[in-house]
């Protein structure tokens, strides 16, 4: 059983506090929670909303219809009432008006003044909402105490009670589950993965929707003993990170498409100087400023080919908050193993949606640095770019080995790092760098397959469409449709094993992506010759839900 709630209002109305509190309370009550944000690029006014889906089974996507709305302003009612089910409920303050019978007006502001804390008015709404779903407000104090001081907790609790008393139960949902989940969004998962993966320096320039990775790390930097530096621009951000990595610490930077554009020359520097680095690109629609607070998967072509000439690089599209954590740790290890740039692709939808998931298992992860010792490098001049069988040169940390100096260089260089334009050297160095591509190919992970054993319809997706595809395949399979989906995480170099297996046997291949041209489909055609028969593409800055994909498959594919 799953229900859908929308909390809407203007920026600055306290909507974020209300929705966060509601999610935490539902989680505390043992429900699975999935909440995604839809907001405008402004600090005050406009129309913003959060959709909170909760239930007794795991949830991986938002949903088009609504069971309840908490409206903090008139436009929330006007914009979303057509999505409200017939037996749904709208909760709003007495100053908002609607003829609709589903509206329940409660004097939130007036009652909050009685509690002598006008800021708890939202908790009155939450109390009422919980009652509507038949959920008790017992044992929720710990949620409040985690967030507020004692007095404010008490005031909020009183507000919950007042709201709870005002209305009658309308739905009935109960969870028998213990609350043993964490609730986390994609950007927090990347940031936590960064700390767990040994990131010691993070330099970045704020850019929506990537900023919250930096904000999280910045908040924790003293406790974690790391440094987070707001660089003067994205060019500085990547070059500082490269300098820190060259000098011996795990470094990372993050941005969105516009900032990534500025970092592109730095990616080439990292490649030729063979400096490990992880770069996060949290995508939003472009070109240029585009839609700053909206979602897209529009940078795949761009990041794969970013920076001039050929060099080995890896691109990982993270699929959900669980995957984002583990892949960030893996990216950090692979960057050092192969001395390459690993790009993590996320997007606004995944960056901002909260999901209840199992706590991360720290026994599953390790930090592997692949550094060389004095014995490995031998006597004489240290050759930073020494020719080796597999193309990986022994890497040492500058200043840690007496009389050995490390020369990092952006020109074509010889084994030591001195500029060398000779034909022999150029060919040998290109071959050395490119050798690592075949090593990388043996390292990449195949896409995740979900669905029936022999699908007639094969959906192809990557990154954040994972959750929506999971739900869509389940809905369609329930109707005995022979369907499956391959969802790519590692996307460059492109893993092709599963694709050949399922692609050969299915009748219809459909790519599902958030961009105009079908960038994954084009990449697959380029790498394997497989052509998609149909496409489900969305490029309006909003995410396809599981239901959206289900409907499109029924209407356009079957």
């Amino acid at each position, binding site marked *: 059983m799953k229900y859908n709630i929308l909390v809407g209002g203007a920026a600055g109305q306290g909507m974020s506090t209300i929705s966060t509190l509601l999610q935490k309370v539902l989680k505390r009550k043992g429900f699975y929670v999935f909440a995604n944000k839809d907001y405008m690029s402004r600090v005050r006014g406009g129309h913003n909303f959060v959709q909170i889906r909760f239930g007794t089974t795991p949830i991986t996507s938002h949903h088009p219809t609504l069971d309840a709305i908490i409206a903090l302003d008139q436009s929330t009612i006007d914009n979303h009432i057509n999505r409200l089910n017939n037996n749904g409920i709208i909760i709003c303050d007495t100053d908002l008006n609607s003829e609709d019978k589903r509206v329940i007006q409660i004097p939130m502001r007036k009652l909050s003044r009685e509690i002598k804390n006008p800021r708890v008015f939202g908790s009155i709404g939450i109390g009422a909402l919980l009652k509507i779903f038949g959920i008790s407000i017992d044992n929720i104090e710990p949620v409040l105490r985690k967030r507020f001081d004692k007095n404010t907790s008490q005031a909020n609790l009183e507000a919950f009670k007042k709201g709870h008393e005002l209305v009658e139960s309308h739905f009935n949902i109960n969870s028998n589950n213990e609350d043993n989940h964490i609730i986390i969004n994609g950007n927090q998962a990347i940031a936590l993965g960064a700390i767990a993966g*040994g990131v010691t320096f993070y330099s970045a320039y704020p850019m929506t929707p990537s900023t919250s990775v930096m904000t999280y790390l910045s908040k924790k930097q003293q406790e974690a003993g790391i440094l987070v530096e707001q660089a003067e621009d994205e060019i500085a951000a990547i070059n500082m990170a*490269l300098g820190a990595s060259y000098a011996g610490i795990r470094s990372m930077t993050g941005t969105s498409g516009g900032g990534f554009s500025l970092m592109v020359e*730095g990616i080439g520097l990292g490649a030729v100087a063979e400096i490990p680095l992880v770069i996060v690109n949290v995508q939003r629609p472009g070109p240029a400023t585009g839609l700053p607070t909206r979602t897209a998967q529009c940078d795949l072509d761009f990041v794969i080919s970013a920076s001039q000439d050929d060099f080995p690089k890896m691109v990982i599209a993270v699929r959900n908050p669980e995957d984002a954590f583990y892949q960030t740790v893996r990216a950090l290890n692979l960057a050092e193993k192969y001395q390459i740039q690993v790009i993590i692709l996320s997007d606004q939808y995944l960056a901002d949606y909260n999901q209840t998931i199992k706590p991360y298992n720290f026994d599953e992860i390790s930090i592997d640095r692949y550094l060389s010792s004095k014995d490995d490098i031998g006597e004489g001049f240290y050759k930073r770019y020494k020719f080796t069988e597999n193309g990986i040169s022994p890497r040492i940390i500058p200043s840690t080995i007496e009389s050995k100096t490390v020369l990092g260089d952006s020109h074509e260089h010889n084994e030591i790092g001195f*500029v060398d334009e000779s034909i022999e050297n150029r060919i040998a160095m290109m071959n050395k760098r490119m050798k690592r591509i075949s090593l990388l190919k043996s390292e990449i992970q195949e896409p995740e397959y979900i669905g029936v054993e022999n699908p007639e319809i094969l959906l192809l997706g990557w990154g954040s469409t994972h959750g929506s595809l999971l739900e869509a395949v389940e809905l369609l399979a329930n109707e005995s449709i022979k369907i499956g989906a391959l969802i790519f995480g590692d996307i460059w170099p492109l893993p092709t094993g599963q694709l050949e297996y399922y692609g050969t046997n299915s009748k219809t291949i459909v790519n599902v992506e958030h961009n105009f041209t079908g960038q994954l489909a084009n990449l697959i055609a380029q790498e394997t010759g497989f052509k998609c028969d149909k496409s489900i593409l969305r490029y309006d800055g909003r995410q396809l839900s599981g239901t959206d994909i289900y409907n499109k498959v029924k209407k356009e594919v079957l």
Partner: protein
Amino acid sequence: MATDIKLFESKSENSWCPGCGNFGIVNALKKAFSELDLLPHNILIASGIGQAAKTPHYVNANGFNGLHGRGIPPAVGAKIANKDLRVIVTSGDGDSYGEGGNHLIHNIRRNIDITHLVHNNQIYGLTKGQGSPTTGKGHKTSMQFEGVYADEFNPIAFAISLGCSFVARSFSADKDHLSEMIKAGMEHNGYALIDILQPCVTFNKINTYKWYKDRVYYIEDDYNPYDKVEAFKKSQEWENKIPIGVIYKEDKPTFIDRIPQIKDNPPLINKKLDPKNAIKFMEEFK
């Protein structure tokens, strides 16, 4: 005490023109390193792109020869990673004052403890003679055929106005003065900008060795570099007389000193990494 200057000799082939002012800078740099009793593996020389930016290849020390205009950010990253490294940036006027101007502004603000040598030859050498930010107005170049239209950039006045904690000028043909300035800059805690007058014998036929020699003079012994107003006046001297020496100083905490988690701990390169250290951060998501 001094280390053997030969330790800093590089095996790289050199591609500067005979008579280039850069040779004087490299020699002064090695002299300073030796007199400061340093060893090559404890020094990092970072640069961008240009003739001056080839310096990391021509001195034996750790080197980072990065992108045009981007000599400073990797140097800053390296200093953050290893606060014990002695970090030098060597780059030209185009690299430091043109393409990479933004980094200069903000690292002066950070007061990160690095020494930035600007080989200021008032012209673009590597790309064969175009105007640089410090080329004189009206100076005809291989690109500005009618002469440079823009006003000259005054690095000394600029740095003083930002409160750069060490601002000096020297002359590449005066090795002793220059090595003293480099030593003073490296001994200074904070951002040290040293603008070095450096003749380009191939592309700048105006600002020649003679042009500079006719104008430079040592700053008086009783000059007080802590006086910002006096320093600003000094920064305005150029056409007839050019002061060399320490022009401005300010004592203030360095970037590293402002950040407790770096200041109070061993260099970050020695930090013990363990994924389990992050388990505690999962609590708030519960």
